[in-house]
């Protein structure tokens, strides 16, 4: 169905938006328009800048440069409420519902209608809730606790909540990620209805078949820039993929050595992911850097964390050099020679209020004690050794950790684990929030570890890292293994295809 503007200004215009963060240019002069009654899809790889662009629209970040126009009028969106008042409604992937409150309360969140006496008007809440849900053809009792609803219905409540504020522009951020086929159909019907009523819809998704099906126009972003905007009919999956990939290799990766003839198996993992019920298995050979790729939140983190004893998988079997090992907790994992570089450095990896020495010694405290007393000298030597090996810039070992930059903090985490001389090193987003120079050092370190017969498994959402760093890449989608690429097979197209594929290599089909 064609969008109608009848010669007026388009509903939404984002003009030459620029948004930078320290170290990265997240959005680089992107322009986008959305018309009334149009579904405009925004597509791109992890880190392409789509979410940042939408956060600018939602009022979270003011743009460094560029203008936003709604109905031809320029607007400044400096907060969530200003964006809401300007008519922008965003349905986030992580919903903004309060689980302990009812459906009705959530839909009116904060702006509960009152009776003449000033008391909360539950009648009005219930009526309004039913009406808001009816607009999207959903029937839910207003008193139902959100915590007892399944994800799909929660999303419906979220949509109703957003619609309740009568937005003209709606942004859906990855709405189909957690939905079944039927539920996706239901959502698309809603989007079609909204389109008929003249709303402008921006739809972010990785599921290219859905994008091609439902959108009127598609914009592809890459590396913070807009690559192309065209009618949906002018795209097919291949053109989409090739527009999404093709990023410039800005980092320098160390050379990958030739793989030995019959490499020894250093580590093998087999388990059943709790959330998908599917079986996943892989091995890491000597000298090999294994990468886990795919879109965000497809189960990669859960798989790798369960290696470390954080229980997201059932029936796990781990083998180190062929010998089975049991790991039920991080303490046991470390004893078996495993190490985990966590995804959220500040919350899970470093002790910001402690000093560098204490941070580096954290995973191996007991190895340098006699009768409970710490060998301070040995500890200091080990720490100093790490500082030198990793070139961490410090004024003293007793410096507080929170005075270090992101890159140096990551080195701190690495150092902590390297001191334990692990046999299996699992790294989750190892270069997140790290400057370019440190990134290169980390890549070199990873290569070195692999050469030293450490099984290295890297999870990264950055495709270039997977291509440049790993010898083999496993692509995971929706909790199962969809592609296994080795050597020259590791390309952006290959990874992208695997990320959207629904074929389970290890089990049945979709």
């Amino acid at each position: 169905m064609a969008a109608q503007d009848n010669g007026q200004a388009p509903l939404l215009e984002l003009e030459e938006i620029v948004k930078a963060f320290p170290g990265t240019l997240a959005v680089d002069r992107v322009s986008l328009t959305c018309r009334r009654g149009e579904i405009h899809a925004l597509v791109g790889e992890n880190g392409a800048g789509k979410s940042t662009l939408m956060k600018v629209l939602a009022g979270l970040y003011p743009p460094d440069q560029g203008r936003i126009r709604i109905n031809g009028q320029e607007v400044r969106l400096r907060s969530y409420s200003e964006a809401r008042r300007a008519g922008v409604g965003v349905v986030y992937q992580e919903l903004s519902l309060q689980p302990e409150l009812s459906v009705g309360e959530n839909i009116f969140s904060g702006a509960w209608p009152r009776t003449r006496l000033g008391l909360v008007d539950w009648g009005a809440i219930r009526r309004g809730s039913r009406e808001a849900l009816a607009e999207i053809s959903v029937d839910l009792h207003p008193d139902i606790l959100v915590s007892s609803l399944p994800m799909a219905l929660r999303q419906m409540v979220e949509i109703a909540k957003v619609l309740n504020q009568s937005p003209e522009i709606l942004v859906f951020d990855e709405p189909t990620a957690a939905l079944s086929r039927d539920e996706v159909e239901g959502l698309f019907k809603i989007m079609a209805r909204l389109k008929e009523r003249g709303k402008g819809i921006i739809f972010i998704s990785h599921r290219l078949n859905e994008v091609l099906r439902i959108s009127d126009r598609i914009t592809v972003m890459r590396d913070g820039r807009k690559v192309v905007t065209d009618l949906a009919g002018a795209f097919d999956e291949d053109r989409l993929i090739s527009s999404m990939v093709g990023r410039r290799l800005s980092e320098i990766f160390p050379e990958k050595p030739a793989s030995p003839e019959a490499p020894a198996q250093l580590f093998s993992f087999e388990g059943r992911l709790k959330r998908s019920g599917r079986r996943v298995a892989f091995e890491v050979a000597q000298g090999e850097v294994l990468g886990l790729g795919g879109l965000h939140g497809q189960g990669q983190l859960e798989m790798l964390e369960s290696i470390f004893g954080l229980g997201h998988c059932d029936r796990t079997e781990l083998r180190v050099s062929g010998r089975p090992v049991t790991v039920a907790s991080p303490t046991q994992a470390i004893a078996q020679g495993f190490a985990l570089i966590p995804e959220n450095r500040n919350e899970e990896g470093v002790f910001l209020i402690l000093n560098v020495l204490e941070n580096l010694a954290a995973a191996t405290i007991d190895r340098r004690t006699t009768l409970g007393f710490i060998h301070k000298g040995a500890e200091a030597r080990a720490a100093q050794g790490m500082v030198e090996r990793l070139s961490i810039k410090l004024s003293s070992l007793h410096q507080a950790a929170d005075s270090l930059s992101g890159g140096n903090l990551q080195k701190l985490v690495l150092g902590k684990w390297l001191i334990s001389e692990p046999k299996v090193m699992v790294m989750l987003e190892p270069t997140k929030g790290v400057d370019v120079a440190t990134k290169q050092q980390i890549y070199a370190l990873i290569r070195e570890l692999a050469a030293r017969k450490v099984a290295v498994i890297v999870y990264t959402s950055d495709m270039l890292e997977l291509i440049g760093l790993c010898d083999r890449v496993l692509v995971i989608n929706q909790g199962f293994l969809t592609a296994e690429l080795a050597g020259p097979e590791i390309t952006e197209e290959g990874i992208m295809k695997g990320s959207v594929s629904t074929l389970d290599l290890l089990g049945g089909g979709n």
Partner: protein
Amino acid sequence: MRTGQRDLRLYAPIYVIFIVIYLLSCFLEANFFTWNNNVNLFTRITPLVFASMAQTLVILTGGIDLSIGSIIGLTNVLAASLPYPESGLNVVLWFLVPALAGLALGLINGLIITGGGFSPLIVTLATGAIWKGLSLFIMPVPGGEVSLAVARTATGKLGAVPMPLLIFLAGALACHRLLTRTRFGRSIYALGGNETLAYESGIACGRVKIWVYGTAGLLAALAGMFLSARMFSGDPLAGEPYILNSIAVAVIAGTSLAGGRGGVAGIIGGAYVFLLINNILNLLAISSFYQYVAKGLILIIALAITSSGGEISPAAWMRRLLKPAGAPSGGVDGPG
């Protein structure tokens, strides 16, 4: 599950326990089910109900109020130190002075906590000491007097209905309405559930918190005032037992220490259970010293159940206790 069902599940257990204990008491003592005894119970329960409601409000926002005992003490002392005894003015002052004082003290708590971003625990511990000091300053030893008219009315009857019963029922109803029918009350739940989300919904979190502590102070003052009428005098340390008791009753009445969940509907049941435990111990000729033990145990059990995510599953609980430290607990991350 609907909110109605959830509330039932939350509050039914305590009322079931209440009925059981009440019946047990009737069984153990012939005179338990007499009018006199029940009226006596109403009188003893009233301050506990108000103190626990105060604590519930604060806990719902995710905080705690350790100064409640001192506010009760101070307002109690004020209520018994008013000038012009036996005059109409005295009565008016009795209503106004302690209540306003309680409100003010509570507001100060709230202002310090939100203004400085400090932990409610340490702030109310400190202010509790200050208020207690003030009480001891005004009245170093128990004494003072309360107007006869007030004392007789508060502990008397309105028609055939005992006054204390009316007082605590009215108080509980008012508090319940506050929580369920006002924007302020609903904001408390949103705030306690997830403060960031509440803030983004446009709720003035700071202001709500300040007034929550203020209201708690007011409710504590009502307890202090009632105590003064009942004891016919003032005692600076009258509120001490209420610190632990109010927390215990709030918890067993269904309010979660994490905030955002619970309410005052179960308070009357909880207060009765607490009071009657002591009664039963007396009746069974067990020394009343055991009430401290009983109180502690009840609180621990109630907390263990609610802290494990509300799974009222002693089996799961036993399993967790007996597992070696560090073993996984079925999909739950974190220590232990």
